[in-house]
């Protein structure tokens, strides 16, 4: 098994006040291989979002380490993290994913522009993804002119446009109806298959959990299950 993400003895404790501290993750160790399609599930408050934020280098652990490929991201400084977020990770949040002042097209191009990709490259990538995600008609609209499902599709396009190795999605279907949720999952699977992106989704939606190839269950900040479905072990 070719490990892509290595999480070792990860702890995250929130100091809510001087006296009270909330342990959100307790001694979490996980291995995610390249090309994985994993779903982190668990009841509300179990630590799913906390884990994804740590993986996305948006927060730093209290203890333990996270490696992404050869990089120990839990040890890096903020200034060193932005290129990693930019080049290696794509993020899809539950809602309000898009930058409101930019059109759908500009949102999708944003990270590519940060990366300094050429205009031509940006255009062909947008065209390619727009076809796959069926958002060609939406490209020139602004986020506030799009429905929740449309916004999520644009968000997925934005997240993968920069060709990240890892796609993190925190409850991406929570604001969608089941039809739209199914479509979004189809897309994520397709991208996972076509582009080899490692996908990590957090959800307590059975629709999502049923699609998991790799199922991780958290409860009260601990990993209580970590197994591959059927014969999907890569």
């Amino acid at each position, binding site marked *: 098994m070719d490990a892509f993400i290595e999480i070792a003895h990860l702890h995250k404790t929130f100091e809510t006040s001087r006296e009270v501290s909330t342990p959100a993750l307790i001694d979490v160790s996980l291995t995610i291989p390249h090309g994985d399609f994993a779903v982190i599930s668990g009841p509300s408050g179990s630590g799913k979002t906390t884990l994804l*934020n740590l993986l*996305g*280098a*948006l*927060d*730093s652990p209290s203890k333990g380490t996270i490696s992404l490929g050869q990089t120990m991201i839990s040890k890096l400084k*903020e*200034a060193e993290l*932005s*290129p*990693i*977020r*930019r*080049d290696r*990770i*794509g*993020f899809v*949040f539950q809602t*309000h*994913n*898009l*930058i*409101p*002042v*930019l059109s759908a097209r500009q949102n999708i191009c*944003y*990270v590519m*522009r*940060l990366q*300094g990709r050429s205009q031509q490259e940006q255009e062909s990538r947008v065209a390619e993804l727009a076809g796959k995600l069926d958002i060609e008609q939406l490209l020139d609209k602004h986020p506030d002119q799009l429905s929740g499902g449309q916004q999520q599709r644009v968000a997925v396009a*934005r*997240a993968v446009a*920069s060709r990240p190795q890892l796609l993190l999605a925190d409850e991406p279907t929570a604001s969608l109806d089941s039809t739209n949720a199914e479509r979004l999952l189809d897309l994520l699977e397709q991208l996972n298959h076509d582009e080899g992106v490692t996908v990590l989704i957090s959800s307590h939606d059975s629709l999502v959990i049923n699609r998991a190839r790799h199922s991780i269950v958290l409860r009260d900040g601990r990993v209580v299950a970590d197994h591959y479905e059927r014969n999907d072990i890569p």
Partner: protein
Amino acid sequence: MYKLIWHMAWNALGRRRGRSLLVTLMIGASLWGLLFMEGIYDGMTEQMIDNTVKSDSGNLSLFAQGYRLDPSLDRLLPDSLLNQQILRTNPLIKSRSIRFSHTGLLATAHAARQVQIQGVPLEEEIVHAGLSDKLAQGRLHFGSDGNGAILGHGLAGKLRVSIGQKIILSAQDRQQNINSLVLKVNGIIRSGNQPIDDKILYMDIEQCREFLGVSQGFSQLSLILHNPDNTALLQEQLLRELDDSAIEILRWDQLYPALLQGRQVMKTFNLICNLLVFCVAGLGVWGVMTVSVLERLREFGIMIAVGTSFQQIRAQVLLESTLLGLGGFILGAGSGVATLLWFVEHGLNLEVFQEGLQAFGMDTIIYAIIRPDYFTTALIAILLACTASVILPLRRLKQARPVTILNSQ
């Protein structure tokens, strides 16, 4: 990269168009006010100085040693002084006029007042003092017989004389005899210099000397320079070349120190005005930028989550505030220049305040001045204010973890 930052900043401002416009207008309006005040007040001060320089002190004045303490008819500068090379062909000097002064009593059939008799070569004085612009009534002429007189506006008013009227001038001549002479009022001038307007009686210098029993000489030589900045230089030259035991050589600001103070007061005043604009711009931009940064935390959070560096966000926020400031500057400077140019051309008519203004030696029509440093100082003040105003919002962004920013609101 710069294109992207520019694009983001421009879009952010565009999305809050109303608010952006409001701050821009606010900065513009306060800058307009500042420029207007600076231009008019400087205009007033410079006009006051100009009036005094022209009507009396020149940029430099020469007197016989001791004359200013004891202005007697024995303390005169000799006519030969005018032939000195340094005064005759000095490239620094634009115009000169000699004045022969003495006190006297001017009377009509009803009233009498003490006057300052000023014997002048009229043609020279017209050029030197710009009398054509100051003529209020009548004309600038001493008559073919040389018995015409030109009175200050205040003096004429107090004596209630009008053009063409006869007046009697009495004075003690050099031999201590009291002489008198009938003169005809040919013109009335308003110099803007109140002591002159209240006291002066211009008459022909030859006539005046004869009247006072003096064969030659004069009390004051007033010099105006092409470039007033050379005043001290010329003063030095003259002090070196001329016999300073017999001649006193004084700059306008030595003769009228209060005027120089006035100019300095205006400078301080302008500085305070700039500070005010700085505060207005700073507060306006600060308010808008704080609100707009705080309400966009989620947006910045997403930008950070997808790999935007803090430096880029800082550049964007700075650019936004600078654009607001520059917008305000362009608006304010544009309207300010237009307004000032109008007042440079047409002047600001303050006839309502005529008496008060004239007491300060100012004209009722005030011509504005435009100086480049109004704009550079204001621009610096505004840019500083804009930069300062985003320091706090940016610090909040920098100190928070990305996840905190992402989850705010």
